[in-house]
């Protein structure tokens, strides 16, 4: 064990609700724990406007506040959060090596808790007007659309939640839903209905092109019942689902399912020894903050068990 490249008990990849919850448990078990985060501490929860269904907050809680509270709680027991991106992992000599933008780190166990990122539409105008009229984060960029017209693309929970959030700025929102109904929960659909004065939902409407003029978005071209429809707008917010953050695992040998989520056994362990996975990036996860916290806690206890087992088993280093 070298001083400048110590072997940590636990490294988590990501510092979202899953990893922070795991860290609360591992540090209280006296396991040396480092969290590596490339984006926002608190993960997607921290860039969500408002969370109404996390237990213990009867009046709801701002996502940003929940993220900060989780961070504080993990750090209180000694978790160390480092700002770095993980670019690969591989087992070595009974340990796990983690390649990061800050060099190689080593641990007895690794928890992959990298969650997911916004999916893109892949249509003309999307890349060209990215952050100049096309956005994926309402809490980040919504404030630029005070008294403006907007289009929101999508019909799931995120789209509904973010459309409602954007009503605090926009004068009107056209919500384009590809199918005949919204996939969002009843509660969120009712929230959208409450804002019917500002949000118009268009069903069976595809989003085909984002059109700009002189560097600014001016409209969205769509198709409804085989007819072309044009929605004049100042900006477009896209919420069509999430894709798992597993790109950095290419070549690691970790098994993924058909949509790219990480497969685990009943002990939340991947096919690589010592590498665990929990939260939104795990195949079978229910993609909620409460379940992320629960999976994080479970993974922490199972990693403790794994480390105890390692200590009792003589290691053959190859």
């Amino acid at each position, binding site marked *: 064990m070298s001083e400048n490249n110590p072997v940590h008990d636990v490294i988590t990849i990501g510092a979202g609700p899953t990893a922070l919850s795991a860290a609360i448990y591992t540090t209280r078990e006296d396991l040396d724990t480092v969290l590596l985060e490339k*984006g*926002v*501490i*608190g993960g997607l929860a*921290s*860039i969500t*406007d408002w969370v109404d269904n996390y237990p213990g907050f009867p009046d709801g809680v*701002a*996502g*940003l506040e929940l*993220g*900060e509270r989780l961070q504080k709680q993990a750090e209180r027991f000694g978790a160390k959060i480092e*700002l770095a991106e993980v670019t690969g992992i591989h087992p070595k000599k009974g340990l796990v090596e983690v390649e990061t933008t800050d060099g190689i780190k080593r641990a007895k166990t690794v928890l992959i808790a990298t969650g997911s990122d916004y999916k893109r539409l892949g249509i003309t105008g999307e890349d060209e007007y990215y*952050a*100049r*009229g096309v*956005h994926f*984060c309402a*809490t*980040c*960029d*919504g*404030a*630029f*659309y*005070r008294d403006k017209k907007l289009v929101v693309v999508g019909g799931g929970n995120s789209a509904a939640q973010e459309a409602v*959030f954007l009503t605090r700025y926009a004068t009107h929102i056209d919500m384009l839903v590809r199918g005949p109904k919204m996939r969002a929960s009843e509660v969120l659909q009712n929230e959208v209905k409450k804002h019917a004065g500002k949000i118009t939902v268009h069903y069976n409407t595809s989003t085909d092109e984002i059109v700009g003029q002189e560097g600014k978005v001016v409209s969205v071209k769509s198709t409804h019942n085989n007819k072309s429809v044009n929605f004049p707008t100042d*900006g477009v917010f896209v919420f069509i689902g999430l894709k798992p953050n597993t790109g950095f695992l290419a070549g690691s040998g970790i098994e993924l399912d058909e949509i790219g989520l990480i497969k685990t056994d009943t002990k939340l362990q991947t096919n690589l020894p010592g590498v665990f996975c929990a939260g939104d990036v795990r195949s079978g996860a229910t993609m909620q903050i409460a379940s992320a916290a629960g999976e994080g806690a479970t993974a922490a206890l199972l990693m403790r068990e794994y480390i105890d087992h390692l200590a009792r088993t003589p290691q053959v280093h190859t």
Partner: protein
Amino acid sequence: MPKNITIFTSNTCGYCVMVKKYLSSKGATYEEVNIDEHPERQKDAYALSGQLAVPVTVVTKQDDSQQVVVGYNLAQLAPALT
């Protein structure tokens, strides 16, 4: 250290919090312009960055040259502070 740092932020932006945390961790002081509280300053953020997004960090160096970093981009923020 730069002469001056200004960050354009909004009330709900998680990436803005990260930029502020990062600057504080490097001992850098900054002036914050919250565009929710000062909507009239939105156009300044747009003029500087060409983007309708926060955070926008404007670093004024000792020689008065300016570097504008859009988003929470450590690859650009770290060298901008030197």
